[in-house]
């Protein structure tokens, strides 16, 4: 199965359950194929979890969901070694993180210690418990959700942690037509019931490998770097994009190019992805406009290198 067909099939599958949100679906798929992690920031009930689940089911991956609460312990995430009386040795009981897609609901409700356990697992792609290292599944993607409006009793993710997420999206409310369709279709039956997997885990692994191999021209690399640099000197930003952000931006752009059926990255891929890849890492100056606006402006002001050919 070639990349583009598979990608289209997965997206079509997701859209069966999420109406009218193709961008969110694509962003989720891109992050998944780029081996990044996704932060969904939105109010409850807009389909954050559904999106993650639909993605997991479409690619026949294991999906585990953790509802973050203040009393959640790090070992609930990573797993714990339990002494097995019968075997007279410690036995590792894997935590919730041992799955291809891990959904962390309301991640900001857990204690910082628990959060960091997850975030370390995200970065390292492995878990070390009692001196033994356990490699996580591949592919491995954390889809964390956050409610931006209910701040009481939460532990907001520090900037350093947010940087670990490749992209942050918000679902947004469906438009009225999509909502109407959802009300009608979803009333009688659960669409998840007939959601079948359209790609095997091997397919997905092949796709991830293919996405890594997508060609990024020096011009586009330069463009990504230019944008990152621009965020660091912009008067409206207190904290600019990290080098990791640039790396993840390019990686995501490769995956997007692949999803779009191209074997090379366009500056347009960068343009599309910057608003989801960069803003959650940046901190605006006090009194400046929103980070999203600043990022849009930077994209609009950064010249696009024309490629290797000199101007005629």
């Amino acid at each position: 199965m070639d990349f583009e067909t598979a990608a289209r099939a997965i997206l079509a599958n997701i859209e069966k359950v999420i109406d009218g949100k193709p961008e969110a679906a694509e962003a989720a798929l891109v992050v998944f194929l780029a081996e990044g992690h996704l932060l969904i920031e939105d109010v409850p009930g807009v389909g954050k979890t559904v999106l993650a689940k639909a993605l997991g089911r479409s690619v026949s991956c294991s999906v585990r969901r953790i509802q973050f609460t203040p009393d959640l312990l790090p070992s609930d995430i990573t797993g714990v070694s339990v002494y097995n009386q019968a075997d007279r040795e410690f036995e590792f009981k894997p935590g919730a993180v041992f799955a291809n897609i891990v959904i962390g609901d309301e991640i900001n409700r857990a204690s910082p210690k628990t959060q960091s356990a997850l975030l370390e697992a995200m970065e390292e792609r492995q878990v070390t418990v009692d001196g033994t290292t356990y490699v996580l599944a591949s592919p491995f993607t954390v889809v964390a959700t956050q409610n931006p409006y209910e701040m009481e009793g939460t532990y907001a993710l520090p900037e350093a942690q947010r940087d670990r997420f490749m992209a942050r999206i918000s679902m947004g409310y469906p438009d009225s037509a999509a909502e109407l369709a959802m009300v009608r279709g979803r009333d009688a039956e659960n669409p998840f019931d007939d959601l079948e997997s359209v790609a095997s885990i091997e397919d997905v692994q092949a796709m991830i490998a293919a996405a890594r191999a997508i060609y990024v021209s020096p011009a586009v690399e330069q463009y990504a770097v230019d944008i990152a640099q621009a965020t660091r000197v912009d008067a409206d930003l207190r904290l600019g994009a990290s080098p990791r952000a640039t790396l993840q931006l390019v990686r995501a752009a490769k995956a997007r190019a692949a999803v779009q059926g191209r074997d090379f990255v366009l500056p347009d891929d960068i343009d599309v992805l910057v608003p989801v890849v960069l803003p959650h890492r940046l901190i605006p100056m006090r009194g400046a406009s929103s980070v999203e606006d600043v990022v849009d402006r930077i994209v609009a002001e950064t010249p696009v290198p024309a490629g290797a050919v000199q101007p005629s």
Partner: protein
Amino acid sequence: MLRAEASTQRLTGRTTRDTVVDHLIIAVAFALLLSGFRSVIAGNDWWITTILVATLTGLACAVLRAVGVRWVAPIAIVVEFLALAWIFVPGTLIGILPTFDTFRELGNLASAAQDIIIEEQAPVAAAKPVVLVVASSFGLLVIVADLLLERRRAASAIGLLLLSVFATPALISGDTPSVWLFVAVAALWLVILRSRTALGGTLARRQRGPAVVLGVAALAAAVAFPVISPDVSAVATSWGKPPPAVFGRGINPMLELGQNLRRNGTTTALTYTTGLPQAPYLKVATLRDFTGKTWKPGTTQQFAAPEGAEALEFSPDIKVEKESTTITIQQLRTTMLPVPYPLDKVSGLKGEWLLGFGRTMTSPDDDTRGQKYSVTSLDIQPTATQMRAISTNPRDLLLQEEVRLPDKMPKIIEDTARRVTKGATNQYDQVVALQDYLRNDGGFTYSETAPVADDYDGNGIDVIAKFLDKKSGYCVHFSSAMAVMARTLGIPSRIAVGYAPGSVVNVKDGQNQYEATSDDLHAWTEIYFEGIGWITFEPTPGVGSATAFKEPGAPASNSDDGEFSGSPRRAARDEATNVDSGATPTSTTTKTAPRTALISFMVLLVMIGIPALLRWSRRRWRISRAGSSVDPLWRELEDTARDFGLPFSPTDTPRGFAARLRTRDGIDGEALSRLLRRVERARFARSGVAEGDGVDDLRAVIASLAQGASRQERWRALALPRSLSGRRAYAPSGPLRTASTLG
């Protein structure tokens, strides 16, 4: 085979025959263009010499190309130099080798040519230096044309070359270039264009459009020529506004006169036959307003019909005869007609000529070139007795201008006048005394150079004073001195500028044929006598003859005063107001209708066309590079979009730009998509090579862009392409920009 096939930059797929044909066509075109230079250079010999040099040079080019030598142009230049040396300074060559003398002599000729070009008015005599310049220029042009012919895309450059050669003689002489010449050369150029587009394949298809456009433009220009018929010299026709032009484009006719007289080389200005007993002065201009610094024509409406003092009204007892003079202009270009005074009637003139102040004829639009006309003038023969009886009162005759003097007068002028005329009791005797003093008795010598050497050249009041002291000068000084001295005595006077009686060169049909050359340029004095009019006096020694009327008792053939019975006044006046029906504007409109300068027109045409031409050639150039890279095509598209008002933005991705382009009406989306894919692949993919070159897609998109644009936008894009003004960054506007500033 030819070297032409050696490189892709050169013409490929062409045979030796094609090349030879091209060269031949260019040769014919140059030969034709050379004929246009007849208005610049007199005679025919130069033509043959130039053809010889150009042919030798062209032959050298052809041979070198056929043999396959590398440095064709430098070698051809050497050949041309040797040819020039062989023709112009053969004595300095040893065999065919130039010596130091060769260079020196050619250098001398070149600097002499420079002088001629600076000093002389076209047409210049075909002197050796001039021919050298023309011949060497055409030789170089042949070399340039040869170089251009070798280039594949030089057809337009060749066209420009031909056009500039075509325009040159007109620029120099102000002559109207021949329409037929233009059409012929344009046709030859189209043949060249066609021979290059007939190569087949895409090249031919791509060149056909511009070829047709240029062809149509050339044809339109050719058709427009006769209508807007060109004349540079018409710029300076009016006496009323500076600079008045008498002999060319000078500033002051009086000063200019001296310069003309001092100039080396004589050209024949005109020839004439006359029925007058004596060869007449041919007046070109009349100057009556003496400001103290110079003589000027005066402020009265110049084209007004002559009245008052200018009317041909005579006392019935004065003998007046009418005689005809036929004048053929040879080498003279001015808007004022040389005519004998007093002019009665003119016939045979081409164009619109008006009788004006001083009874001279001027034309608002035409000039004297090529004119042959017949003038009826009056020969007034009063007796000395009659003249002595006349006492002119300038006040009664509205002749205040003619007696006006500057406020500050050097004493020597009036003193001299009084002293000289002491004893003369009437106006005639006074004037004759002044004339004789300057001409014979005063010890004056004629010199064209003394005033310049002693720094009193000119005709101001101080100059006259100095002249009376130094007693050396030329016609300007003599006539000016006499006129001013007459005025100090209250006698109306003025200066006439024109040609002194020429010399007899031929006898034809029993009539003397006279020739007036540039050496006959002259200024003399006219004095007014009430009841007779303006009488010519000649104060300059050695020129013409002194004016003196028949003394009583002297033997004379036609002294019968009663002969003039009837009413000569009436008859003369009627004729005077009705100069010649052949010269009225209405009957000659077809030929001379509203004229503007050809050169201004052509320069304007070229200037208007320059942006379009630059834009067009840039497009051509980019398309020509489409084979190796799609990038030029995309830049072309960006530029074209800019031409049509879609701003360029360096922050646009190709896709973003295409998206903006798609918002235009009628855009060819499919071609645009193909082109976009091509450019994206070229710029950002690992291997950018795609099939075809995308030129057709580019053309389709550009065509659809033009189609969707309004007529105004299309013209704007053609005539004033915005993309020529550099790549101006497009500032993002709207919410993005304001968001950050509003905070």
